[in-house]
């Protein structure tokens, strides 16, 4: 990771966080501009309640805890032997070597022989929107009715009882970005959730996390709509579709700006009709919503980068990115993260050039590297997916260490999701999202033994009291099936 990239990402993340923080919180809805509130309900003005489905997440009860004697991967490049991790009141208090002072009154966990990492972050998940069991009545991930559905929000499709959340937690996953599918050029808003059991979606929402916008390159949109005799039917149709939408968004944003300027001057003005889809696109143009762009091929990623420049927005991350290894330096220069699997490839033409060393090669070229799942099974073992990707690099002498590769599933996805100020690494002051592993997490034999979210124990492989079950699983033959 270059320092320039770090700076660029940090700046964006901070801006996005500020933007999001300024408008979130159940009681802190920003007042609409004078003159607007009197004449229309909040739902008609995109600025009145930018967070209409606010997070109700509250950390679960926790005890001040210190883990000592473990090997600690901080995700900031350090591997600490015989390390100590201390957290209290939901935040990390200290991380260091055996000399680290443990305050009085801590619950002490013996970490000898164990490994500690930040909570795993899956930057590409469809849990909740494509839940288990996979039946058509719960298939809520793709609004395949129009190539531009920036108006839909993945959070409105999430079924919080998806047993997949529990399985992912048992694999150390503490935060997920839930995305709409990739049938559309603009698939809708993603949402970032804390991986805690909740009756409502709002109870999982990551407070202050910026929204993402799912965009999709390539074969899916043109197959889905071309197959219906509609545009896009070709790659060039895809690009025309993106550009048209950004033109529409710019015009829409200008109408609202003009309206607000007139109201501010005391002039009379009719508010524009609110458009949920264009609201989201305008959010991207303002830097408040992060673009999460499904895109496999190197050449298509390069085109998407030019579109972003043409309309003045930033791509936060390319997802899948099977050909990132062909354009590592470009991704590094542009400060765009890429998320991929270890080696899932060949399932369609745009993934035909996928290789195991994809992540490792682009990483060594300086690109912000993320290993994602896009899959309810892989999400349970992102540590091993990263391990396979790391081994493929090491096979050709790239000498990637666990201390580096752990960031692929923790700090780097946090950056791409705009939450790296809050989680993703073991640094004092951050949320205490922590996993204790039975062994080196890059080993096939490693298991997450204890998982903490905001300092609260949310999963314990050895203690049935901390093995939550979905409502769906009660009374079923597989109840609690992922426990020993």
């Amino acid at each position, binding site marked *: 990771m270059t320092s320039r990239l770090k700076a660029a990402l940090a700046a964006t993340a901070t801006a996005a966080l500020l933007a999001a923080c300024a408008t979130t919180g159940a009681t802190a809805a920003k007042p609409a501009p004078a003159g607007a509130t009197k004449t229309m309900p909040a739902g008609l003005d995109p600025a009145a309640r930018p967070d209409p489905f606010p997070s109700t997440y509250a950390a679960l009860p926790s005890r001040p805890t210190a883990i000592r004697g473990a090997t600690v991967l901080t995700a900031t490049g350090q591997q600490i032997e015989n390390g100590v991790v201390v957290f209290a009141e939901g935040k990390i208090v200290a991380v260091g070597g055996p000399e680290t002072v443990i305050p009085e009154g801590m619950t002490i966990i013996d970490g000898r022989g164990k490994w500690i990492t930040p909570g795993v972050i899956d930057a590409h998940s469809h849990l909740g929107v*494509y839940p288990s*069991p*996979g*039946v*058509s009545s719960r*298939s809520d991930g*793709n609004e*395949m009715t129009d190539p531009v559905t920036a108006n839909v929000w993945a959070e409105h499709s999430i079924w919080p009882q998806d047993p*997949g959340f529990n*399985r992912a937690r048992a694999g150390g996953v503490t935060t997920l970005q839930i995305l709409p*599918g*990739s*049938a559309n050029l603009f698939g809708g808003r993603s949402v970032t959730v804390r991986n805690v059991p909740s009756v409502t979606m709002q109870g999982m929402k990551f407070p202050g996390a910026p929204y993402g916008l799912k965009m*999709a390159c390539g074969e*899916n949109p043109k197959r*889905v709509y071309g197959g219906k005799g509609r545009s896009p039917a070709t790659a060039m149709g895809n690009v025309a579709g993106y550009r048209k939408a950004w033109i529409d968004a710019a015009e829409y944003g200008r109408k609202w700006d003009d309206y607000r300027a007139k109201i501010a001057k005391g002039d009379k003005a009719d508010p524009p009709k609110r458009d949920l889809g264009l609201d989201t696109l305008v959010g991207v143009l303002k830097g408040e919503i992060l673009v999460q762009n*499904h895109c496999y091929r190197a050449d298509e990623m390069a085109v998407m980068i030019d579109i972003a420049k043409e309309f003045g927005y930033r791509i936060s991350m390319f997802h*899948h990115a099977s050909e990132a*290894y*062909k354009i590592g*330096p470009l991704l590094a220069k542009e400060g765009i993260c890429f998320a991929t699997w270890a*080696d*899932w*490839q*060949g*399932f*369609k*033409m745009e993934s*035909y050039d*996928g*290789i*195991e*060393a994809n992540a490792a*090669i682009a990483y060594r*070229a300086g690109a912000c590297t993320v290993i994602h799942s*896009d*899959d*309810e*099974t892989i999400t*349970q*073992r992102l540590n*091993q997916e990263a*391990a*396979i990707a*790391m*081994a493929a690099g*090491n096979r*050709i002498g790239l000498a990637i260490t666990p201390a580096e590769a752990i960031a692929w599933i923790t700090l780097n996805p946090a950056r791409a999701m705009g939450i790296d100020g809050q989680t993703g690494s073991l640094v004092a002051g951050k949320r205490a999202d922590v996993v204790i592993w039975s062994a080196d997490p*890059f*080993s*096939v*034999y490693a298991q997450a033994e204890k998982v903490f979210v905001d300092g609260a124990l949310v999963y314990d492989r050895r203690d049935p009291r901390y093995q939550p079950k979905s409502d*769906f*699983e009660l009374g*079923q*033959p*597989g109840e609690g*099936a*992922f426990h*020993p």
Partner: protein
Amino acid sequence: MKSPLIAPLALLAATWLAAAPAAAETVAIVNARLETAAAAGTIPSGAIVLKDGKIIAVGAGVTAPAGARVIDARGGVVTPGLIAASTNLSVSEVSAVRETQDDGSGRLTAGFDVSYGVNPDSTMIPLARQSGVTRGVVTPELTRGGAGHKDDSGADDFAGGGGGAAAEPGMFAGQAAIISLAAGDTDPVEKARVAVGLDLGEAGARNAGGSRGAALVLVRAAFEDARAFARNRAAYDRGATREFGLSRVDLEALIPVVEGRTPLLIRVHKASDIRQALRLAREEKVKIILEGAEEGWRVAGELAAAGVPVIVDSQADLPSAFEALGSRLDNAARLQAAGVTVAIMGARDFNNLRQARFNAGLAVANGLPREAAMATLTSNVAKIWGMTGVGSLVVGQTADVVLWTGDPLETSTWPVAVFIGGVEQPQSSRAFELRDRYATPSTTGYPPAYR
């Protein structure tokens, strides 16, 4: 077509091609940890000698014979070549490109023969060798039903694809084949028609028009027709038999099944459906192999008592369907403990065969004994599929041997040498060529296409 165990033929094929890998030579791999997948278990340090395509010595006290090429394993691990227990390798190149898909039964049912479509030039074969896979069982799917391919865009994107099925598609997926992954082998099919595929459970119900009861009645009726056909071929040819539900080629393919010579490969998941499969086998006197069997642990004792082997994906732990509500990560361990012969597969898909060895590692993390795990990838697969002479490191066996950098179930290892029939296989693959083209920046000013 050749028998799996006529190694001289394989050797001949390899030597005959100038561009093929070096012919079988005498090779000694010394200073290795030997995971034999046989009675000898794991030998912490020893050597193995390959000669004339066979294993001629293996053990702790073995030394390299004079004239042998000696490979110092430096503590690396030697295992039998892995055998993909059920795969579409060589009959599927790009899942979403219909023209490269030859694993679907098309207009046929039991009569479909996957072996005719095996593509020795598939770029996925060298890739699979780099996962240590030396042989594979290529299994068919019923074109109308089946699970379809995992897609990155959401489960429904390929919905409505289907197509190509006959008016009466029947229930059977067609006939499987065993292939060798040897480079330069122009006819990789070792044995065709080794099993007939059948989906039960939800897919079977769907194939039968909607319910399990219809599926099992259709299957039993097809067996009855096959028996009647076998007894009355002449009458059939005269048009003097009653009407049969299947075509002549489909009935022909079922004859060895109803005669108990060829197994049915049944894809089935739920405990009650597994019990129906066991009952079907018992009452119809057919041999069966189960694939999937996510709820196998619930009927492990019955499976063991019936001597029915299973092929499992040990990652399956989600209630992914109503027929898989009991999926558990320790399914393989529980089945093995109950005495069931277990094979572990990766994804069926050609492009994820590497997952099989990691799945075996995962099964170990969830209770499967380590030596048993190696057998699930090698000797058990051979046993299930009736492949004699491969699958373990035993003197006299075909020299399908892999040398690994370390524990082959670990994420951090890779094969450093792969032998098939005693012939060391090339390390190249399309994926490696792509990798090497881009692994380092070009310094010539020319685009990567010149590298």
